[in-house]
């Protein structure tokens, strides 16, 4: 057992000896553990307890590509103003991993607090931090005699320690335990006991010497805590997904896994049989081939993957584009190239996905920035794919997909499903049996299709990836090729009118400074804008594209400003390249400024604030 007085003296440098200011509801807690040690439940309990206290909160898991043994860090950011993007500085470190403890402690800013396994003796490392040692294994031994359980429950000890040190309401910790372990009564009891022992230890042995504290707020009324992949899966179910084929790959696996959970529960017919098919394919080629053909045959078909899988799907996606087949593909982006950093986040596939496959191809891509949009695009993507008869991508990323976000509850689809231009037997009878698969009848460049199994002698047509004319007949005629390709280009213009428009937030009158960013960059951009306004009186307007191809308002936003920062979570400025390719000379030189973040960490506001501040000093 540690000697409370002695240690407090040892670790109390003069600058924090003086009465510290209280910092309420604004901190980042980082829990450093070993992968596979079972800390995830504790971290979720901690996160949920804060959420239940009404404090805006978000959780990010920084984990290795490993099952057990390598270091992992879970960060919880609580912020009274609602900023939950990654914060570069950690305020509260829970150091349980001997492999990383020293480096973790060395990286902290002065004044931060460290809760740690006392045998690590971290208090010797710095004299400008607040140290809270605890004998985790010893305390866990008080909870249970079972050695295996003891290891797991040591994690719940820190929940108790933090609960006491940060004034987290015990009832909310217990409530979070209940919801984490649900019906497992014994687990609930053991975990509660571990928390109580943590609290008791802190009360009896630790003196609060840091400024951080948590207080109840009312910012989470009605909200839920969810990861983007669950939201995607849920959205897909409400989009009527009927065939989902996939191959496991981090960080996308949980899209179809969670979709499957929802489908099993809510998509059985009265006879108990499935109104869906989920197939774990042998690889991504098969996954996309199955989904594409299911879309061809009239199912609402989808697959989910990540970078390496996208590369493998390339050939089939080109077929889908050229043969005009609806299909939804989720790309939960991770760090490439190649295997890259498979458990880290990036926006590195936007360029390759947009133009995926050989020849002239381009694809509708939806760019969700929140779990709310993951749900919304989850169902809308099917409408777009079937309306446009083309593969539609949804580009999420690991940060959005696998991390946990608070969100308003999702809204039920506000319109019936759009099944697109499908001719039935009755339609064919009315038309006198004439039907040209690839003819532009309506002038919107979207043709009509029939489904296999349609009982009409004129329904059949032959789908092929080779050159074809309006009747879907094979041809190598250059005129037919040019006609079809030109129509596909016009169809893309139709798509431009149908995809979700960008979200624009601008000052009145508009600021000469703007930022364009998408997807999971959004929370960091919004936080940076507020900080720039409050701390440096810099107004920065914001346009967030929600889809490719770009809507015309994107160019208007750029040309109305003198400097527009284009934020990419990739090395090569892929969004910037897309803007340049799309608008070329219509953007005056020098307007677009490229901010590129590609460390594999989620986007943070400080990086944007620093970049913009320096840029504005230069401009002034």
């Amino acid at each position: 057992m540690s000697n409370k007085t002695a240690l407090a003296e040892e670790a109390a440098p003069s600058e924090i000896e003086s009465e510290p200011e209280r910092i309420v509801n604004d901190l980042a807690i980082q829990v450093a553990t070993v992968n596979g040690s079972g800390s995830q439940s504790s971290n979720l309990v901690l996160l949920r307890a804060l959420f239940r206290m009404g404090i805006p909160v978000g959780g990010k898991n920084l984990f290795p590509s490993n099952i057990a043994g390598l270091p992992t860090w879970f960060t919880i950011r609580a912020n009274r103003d609602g900023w939950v993007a990654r914060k570069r500085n950690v305020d509260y470190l829970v150091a349980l991993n001997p492999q990383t403890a020293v480096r973790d402690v060395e990286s902290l800013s002065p004044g931060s607090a460290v809760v740690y396994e006392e045998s690590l003796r971290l208090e010797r490392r710095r004299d400008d931090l607040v140290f809270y040692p605890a004998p985790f294994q010893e305390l866990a031994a008080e909870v249970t005699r079972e050695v295996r359980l003891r290891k797991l429950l040591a994690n719940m000890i820190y929940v108790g320690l933090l609960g006491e040190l940060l004034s987290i309401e015990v009832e909310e910790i217990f409530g979070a335990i209940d919801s984490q372990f649900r019906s497992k009564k014994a687990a609930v009891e053991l975990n509660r006991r571990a928390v109580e022992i943590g609290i008791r230890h802190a009360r009896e042995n630790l003196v609060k010497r840091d400024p951080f504290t948590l207080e109840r707020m009312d910012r989470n009324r009605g909200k839920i805590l969810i990861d983007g992949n669950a939201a995607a899966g849920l959205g897909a179910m409400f989009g009527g997904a009927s065939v989902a084929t996939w191959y496991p790959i981090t960080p996308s696996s949980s899209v179809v896994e969670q979709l499957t959970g929802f489908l099993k529960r809510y998509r059985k017919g009265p006879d108990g049989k499935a109104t869906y098919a989920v197939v774990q394919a042998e690889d991504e080629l098969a996954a996309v081939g199955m989904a594409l053909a299911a879309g061809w045959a009239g199912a609402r078909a989808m697959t989910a993957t990540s970078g390496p899988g996208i590369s493998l799907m390339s050939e089939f996606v080109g077929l889908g584009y050229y043969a005009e087949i609806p299909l939804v593909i989720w790309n939960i982006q991770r760090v490439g190239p190649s295997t890259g950093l498979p458990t880290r986040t990036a926006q590195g596939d936007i360029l390759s996905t947009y133009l995926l496959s050989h020849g002239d191809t381009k694809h509708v891509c939806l760019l969700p920035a929140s779990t709310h949009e993951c749900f919304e695009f989850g169902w809308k993507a099917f409408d777009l794919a079937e309306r446009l008869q083309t593969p539609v991508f949804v580009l999420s990323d690991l940060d959005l997909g696998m991390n946990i976000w608070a969100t308003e509850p999702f809204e039920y689809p506000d319109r019936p499903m759009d099944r697109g231009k499908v001719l039935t037997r009755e339609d064919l009878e009315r038309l006198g049996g004439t039907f040209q698969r690839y003819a532009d009848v309506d002038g919107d460049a979207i043709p009509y299709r029939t489904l296999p199994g349609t009982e009409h002698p004129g329904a059949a047509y032959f789908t092929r990836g080779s050159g074809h004319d309006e009747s879907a007949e094979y041809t190598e005629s250059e005129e037919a090729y040019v006609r079809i390709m030109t129509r596909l280009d016009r169809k893309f213009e139709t798509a431009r009118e149908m995809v979700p428009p960008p979200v624009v937030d601008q000052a009145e009158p508009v600021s000469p400074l703007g930022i364009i960013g998408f997807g999971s960059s959004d929370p960091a951009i919004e936080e940076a804008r507020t900080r720039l306004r409050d701390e440096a009186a810099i107004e920065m307007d914001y346009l967030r594209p929600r889809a490719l191809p770009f809507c015309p308002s994107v160019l208007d936003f750029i040309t109305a400003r003198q400097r527009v920062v284009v934020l990419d979570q990739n090395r090569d400025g892929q969004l910037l390249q897309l803007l340049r390719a799309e608008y070329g000379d219509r953007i005056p030189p020098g307007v677009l400024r490229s901010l590129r973040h590609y460390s594999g960490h989620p986007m943070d506001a400080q990086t944007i604030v620093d970049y913009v501040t320096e840029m504005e000093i230069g401009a002034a």
Partner: protein
Amino acid sequence: MPAPDASSRTRKVNRLGLTPSDYKGKPSTLCKGCGHDAISSQLIRAFFESDVRPHQVAKLSGIGCSSKTPAYFLNHSHGFNAVHGRMPSVATGAVLANRRLVAVGVSGDGDTASIGIGQFVHLVRRNLPLIYIVENNGVYGLTKGQFSATADENAALRSGEVNRLPNIDLCGMAIELGATYVARSFAGDPKQLVALLRGALAHNGTAVIDILSPCVTFNNHAGSTKSYTWGKDNEEPIHILDFVPAMDQIEVEYEEGTDQEVQLHDGSWVRLRKLERGYDPTDRRAAQELVLEANEKNLFLTGLLYLDTSKRTFLDSLELCDEPLALLSEDQLRPPPEVLDEVVASYR
């Protein structure tokens, strides 16, 4: 005991009132005399004779000479000529979306035994209801005559180049992987081929039919083991096979001990008049041994190598509803708002 379906072979119209020309396709663009065209003709005949509704058929293929052929039969059926080696995944998606489709996949030896062997393996393992035809000529035709992985060891190309690698026996693989209907045939043996195709149409599960289909341009010379001449000289049927539709069953006499009959899922029968081998195709081990023997002795044994009518299909494993997924209504596909409320509440 059932008798062969002799009557339908001479009919001008089938029970649907359709004529053979209702099952035809576009004119073939393959070389004159191509084995694949002979197979297309037998497909037309089999679908006609089995009274298959053309609109219920989906024709799937990969890339290659063989994969072009779905355009040359069943004009009134939807066709999907996909990407090289990926017919199995395309067939799987189509059947999942609409389980009422009669799916016929046409592939070649390059398409199946090389680039698409992974998909072949997994399709067979799943026992998806599909007729999987391999038009096997041992060479890549469209790229002008390279060896494929089914070319026999020591077989020679017209140029004199000799294949030094062992062949992949797709029937042997299919039996090993759990296919439920495995046959080998010859484009030059239309009678047997039609019976096998009709049996496959009646079968519920993956039916793999590996058909020697000579390439008249690149692999029909002396020294080839995939030529018409070689096929004609070497074909050894393991039985005389007749297909007996459910509705045609009448009592006939047959010599005790020489016949074997197996009932298929739709009530029809395959009747096997045993030849000297006395072979039982429902015996999996015997089937594997037969394939091994054929490979060791370079025998061209044709007929129904293996049949298992008891194994569940992929659709059974998935517990799919009876109605095609593609035809489900919005009510069946989109759960009501209360479900969203319930799910959302579980995330509070």
